[in-house]
């Protein structure tokens, strides 16, 4: 007999808990609604149209409502597109490695050595973002052009006789991309190094490790999350870049985005452009997925 009222009490408490949970869930839903709507309207819907269009066909400069895999077949059968994809990935890799090598010492310096002027150095990192990407990229055009600043001075000093061809080369594209994406490498690296307890580095040295050994065996492994994040950001943004290869590169420097753009607005072949976009998106997703698995980015950080 006594067990009956106890059970009632328990169940009413349970009901309370359920009610509470439901209310909480409603509130969370309410809070995420604007963001979700935004994503739905400006991301999911366009994505859906791109996906739909990629199955249409294109003839006589007309899009025909259709359902065909021809566009995808073309993406994989035409050697040119694989080449562009490969070129984009390679550029991404080169730019990422250069940014890592240039960025790590800077991040380390800001985090460890710069006591009083850390703010100024940060400002230096951020200020370029106040200028449009287009302007910054055109600046390189002025610097590297055949009649540009660099060639002028090199000839002025008599180092070279004829202007060097620097603009519209792969090197120009890489220089421009490194310049633009370096801060995206430095910031996560900085956060990671700043988080690293200095006494860990000192402990390594105390046990006989030189500066380089300390760096390789302690600093690098423990700042891996920053390295991984910085590399991923830089790599993805480089591979996606459109403007820099367009302005600083020659015809053979076109990257994925440039090809997609020319399909959409050059030949107006939207179905094929869409198919290219979809394939590339899947590539990027696959990359992020594998990368996350390897570097375990989503897991809780050790401490």
């Amino acid at each position: 007999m006594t067990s009956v009222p106890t059970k009632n009490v328990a169940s009413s408490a349970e009901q309370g808990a359920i009610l509470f949970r439901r209310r909480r869930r409603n509130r969370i839903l309410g809070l995420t609604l604007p963001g979700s709507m935004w994503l739905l309207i400006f991301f999911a819907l366009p994505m859906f149209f791109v996906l739909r269009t990629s199955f249409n066909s294109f003839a006589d400069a007309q899009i025909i409502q259709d359902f065909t895999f021809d566009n995808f077949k073309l993406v994989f059968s035409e050697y040119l597109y694989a080449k562009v994809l490969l070129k984009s990935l390679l550029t991404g890799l080169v730019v990422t490695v250069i940014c890592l090598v240039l960025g790590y010492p800077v991040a380390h310096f800001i985090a460890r050595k710069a006591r009083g002027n850390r703010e100024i150095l940060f400002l230096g990192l951020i200020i370029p973002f106040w200028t449009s990407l287009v302007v910054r990229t055109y600046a390189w055009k002025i610097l590297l052009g055949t009649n540009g600043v660099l060639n002028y001075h090199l000839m002025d000093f008599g180092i070279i006789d004829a202007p060097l061809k620097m603009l519209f080369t792969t090197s120009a594209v890489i220089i421009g991309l490194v310049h633009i994406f370096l801060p995206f490498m430095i910031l996560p690296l900085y956060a990671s190094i700043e988080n690293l307890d200095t006494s860990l580095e000192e402990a390594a040295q105390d046990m006989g490790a030189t500066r380089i050994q300390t760096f390789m065996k302690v600093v690098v492994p423990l700042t891996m999350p920053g390295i991984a994040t910085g590399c991923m950001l830089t790599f993805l943004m480089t591979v996606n870049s459109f403007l820099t290869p367009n302005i600083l590169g020659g015809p053979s420097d076109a990257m994925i985005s440039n090809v997609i753009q020319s399909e959409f607005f050059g030949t107006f072949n939207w179905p094929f452009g869409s198919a290219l976009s979809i394939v590339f998106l899947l590539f990027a997703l696959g990359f992020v997925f594998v990368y996350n698995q390897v570097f375990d980015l989503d897991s809780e950080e050790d401490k």
Partner: protein
Amino acid sequence: MTDIDVELLNITKSWGDFTAVKNVSFKVKKGEFCSLLGPSGCGKTTIMRMISGFETPTEGIVRIAGEDMSGKKPFQRPTNLVFQHHALFPHLTVAENIAFGLKIKKQPREEIQKRVNRMLELVQLPELGDRTIRQLSGGQRQRIAIARALVNEPAVLLLDEPLSALDLKLREQMQLELKRIQHEIGTTFVFVTHDQKEAITMSDVIAVINEGVIEQMASPSDIYERPATEFVAGFIGETNLFKGKIKKGSGTSASLMCDGEEIHVQLDEKLPEGTSIGVSIRPEKIIWGAVADEATNAYEATVRETIYQGNVVHYRVVTANGLELGVDITNNGGHQVAAVGETVNIGWPIERGVPVMVRVT
């Protein structure tokens, strides 16, 4: 070979206008357990960092095992440091942490394995080699940090408040553990602490530091029984400190006036009349009751406060002229606890009061 493992010669360390360590000199013998004791910010860590090579002295010389360490980097010194917050590497296992220094020195693999296991046994955690640092308790982490330092067989092990993050119970246990380890391996230990009790129970020799200056360096019993300065007397244990100027003296026995009472004291050496001096008398060294009358310093006093603490009874009493003292009486069954307002006789033989140097302001 010398039998001095650590020697500091006129070490000074300044940052800009601020001087953290002022003209410090001391020696630690081989195999000794030396504590640096002092309040927060007195320069203990700075001294340790100069011994281990992380800071360069502004002036002075550090010698380790007889060798001048000037210009030597931390990784070139025969010292190892146990950090305040263990500083174990979170990306390595316990065994890998201990093996770190040996791997750097390219020891053969079997040798590393053997020494790591020996260290794990020394700190009594033989099962934990494969754990990560996160899977250890606070006390276990400190033990592994000690093992990681000792495996390198340093001439001197430096420990910067290694126990301060632990709770009292674990701390006391680790104090015994550290003593045992030091006894077993015989390495010279320099141990930083701001806990006077910890320093007294563990050390062979204690250097009491205040504002970057060594106030006194002596054995724990000397530090407690014969404090040299006002600061040492006050920092280690409880004491009554009476300050005044030397009034008159015949040989080394002198007296001074403090709060209207005359206090007799036995000096170590004769001092001129008018010298400022302090007399320290520990509360538990004061005699209570009628027998006190026969002591050199004898006073009639009124009980102002009685604090019953179980094993001891702590009194605050004040003499007729207004001299206030703390007195601890062991509650040994023979003692009749006095109530507030009662008049009692107190006193102490002249040799129990210790003359101490005072800061003249």
